[in-house]
């Protein structure tokens, strides 16, 4: 980077740091609050007395989670789901994105395929037929239902297509001169160059598979197969007392433990927070690779 020394530019830098730092602080607040609740006494938390600092500091919520085998079981399911789902998405996105970045002269009916993709992104038949389809494929209560259930991430495919299309033409021509076939071209030339966009869409896949809870609820018939967010969702649902039996209410009253729930939410966020900075490095390495090719 080239440095400038003008006063205006310096002032701008200072303001920038203040503004961006302030915005960042604003975004930490909810997580900080969740952490603060998780470290507080339950009575204080549910009375709304906990603010940005824990009231009656204790670690009992975290101790309890350590002994909760269901939590860790779901954690493990989620990890499997993310690993399978993100890998599968990566392969499919690449395999769809690369050929579709070619024009219709190279790939006849390219536009037909493209419009089918866009169409499926916008239209769906609703929950019931979707569920029936997955059931008839025999995937209910199977981790593959979670991996495959949402179908192709079309939006990510479009991002990748556009990235490939914006690459210089010389890249392909040079490879052709070297006698590379279509598969070598994809794997050896285009994939390495597309690191920034592939890292981005992979992040999206990871985040989707980690955070998605509804499919877990609908497609898994056994609570032992719930991914983590589905497990957590069971804990934070709003209780509608009017339609419950007194006995259910009694059970709920023992269940509602705000500090414990906050601790679980906090822990559940951790993996993505750890992974994100790691993927961020790839965005940066994308620059380096991008400049080498020139």
């Amino acid at each position, binding site marked *: 980077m080239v440095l400038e020394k003008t006063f205006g530019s310096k002032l701008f830098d200072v303001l920038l740091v203040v503004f961006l*730092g302030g915005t960042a602080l604003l975004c930490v607040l909810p997580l900080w609050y969740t952490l603060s609740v998780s470290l507080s006494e339950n009575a204080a938390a549910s009375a709304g007395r906990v603010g940005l600092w824990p009231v009656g500091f204790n670690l009992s919520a975290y101790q309890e989670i350590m002994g909760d085998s269901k939590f860790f079981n779901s954690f493990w399911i989620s990890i499997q789901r993310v690993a399978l789902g993100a890998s599968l998405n990566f392969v499919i996105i690449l395999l769809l994105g690369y050929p579709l970045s070619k024009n219709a002269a190279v790939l006849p009916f390219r536009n037909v395929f493209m419009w089918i*993709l866009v169409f499926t992104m*916008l239209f769906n038949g609703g929950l019931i037929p979707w569920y029936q389809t997955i059931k008839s494929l025999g995937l209910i209560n199977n981790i593959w239902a979670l991996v495959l259930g949402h*179908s*192709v991430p079309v939006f990510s495919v479009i991002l990748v297509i556009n990235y490939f299309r914006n690459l210089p033409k010389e890249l392909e021509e040079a490879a052709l001169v070297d006698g590379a076939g279509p598969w070598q071209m994809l794997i050896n030339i285009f994939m390495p160059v597309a690191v920034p*966009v592939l890292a981005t869409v992979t992040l999206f896949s990871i985040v989707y598979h980690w955070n998605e809870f509804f499919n877990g609820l609908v497609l898994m018939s056994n609570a032992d197969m719930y991914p983590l967010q589905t497990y957590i969702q069971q804990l934070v649902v709003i209780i509608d007392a009017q339609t419950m039996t007194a006995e259910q209410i009694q059970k709920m009253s023992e269940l509602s433990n705000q500090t414990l729930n906050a601790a679980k939410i906090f822990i559940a966020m951790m993996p993505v927070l750890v992974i994100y900075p790691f993927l961020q490095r790839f965005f940066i390495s994308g620059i380096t690779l991008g400049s080498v090719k*020139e």
Partner: protein
Amino acid sequence: MTCNMKTRGYAKHYYLMLLPGFIWLTLFSIVPMFGIVIAFQDFNPGLGMLRSEWIGLENFKYMFTLNDSKSIFFNTIFIAVMKIVANLIVPLVFALLLNELRISVLKRWIQTIVYLPHFLSWVILSGILLDIFSFNGPINAVLSMFGVSPTLFFARADLFPFIIVGSDVWKEFGFNTIIYLAALTGINPSLYEAAAIDGASRLQRLRSITLPGIMTTIILLSVLSLGNVLNAGFEQIFNLYNPLVYSTGDIIDTWVYRTGLLNLQYGLATAMGLLKSVISFVLIAASYFLAAKFANYRIF
């Protein structure tokens, strides 16, 4: 082009590449799509999709015959369009500002932090928002320092849509910044160096290098976000609204939900979904052809 000549034989390999994706798409997306027929039925689960009674456009007509359908549609579009615009511009501005930051450690920290709210669900965030905007909450405390008397924000129908849009931007801008940042890394740094040697100011560099470099991304995101003109955000509004703000905050999805509370209106819900899809599709297709015709630019 010679290039095309050489690669023409590659087509069958390309089709082979497309095959797994399209099999997946067919099984999990195209096959279930036949469920759209429910929108035209008085769906009876006992009879199923094939034997339920066909009622034509009845479900669609019903949506427009309501006394308050005008306000519900208006609220939905008003909130959704504001969200689309804000969620395009704020992340873009933020990404550009972040790009100007020269302390790379700080840059990475901020980038990591701002996307945090994205991971909290509205069930959790709404509780925090209600606290922040409560009568004794921090917003009112700050306002009172400027001599403004405290107000019950969530009882104010006039403010409700703006609180909804503002909080949505706050939750999502960090995450939405990611695509812009990825696009920014694609710009060749040597261009900036050359510009600096030519003595271009920051603003000039922004205008002539940065913006053109990510224009594709901006246009792409704008067009695709047109698909959201009827998505005002059910989960968020459902967790925050109350009867006092029905006049400005009740949207199609919350309305369908309340109707569904009484009896499961599969047909109505599917019809609603279909209407949204059709409108999105028309808008996206139109912008695709307009861009192709007037700017000679293909979006996808």
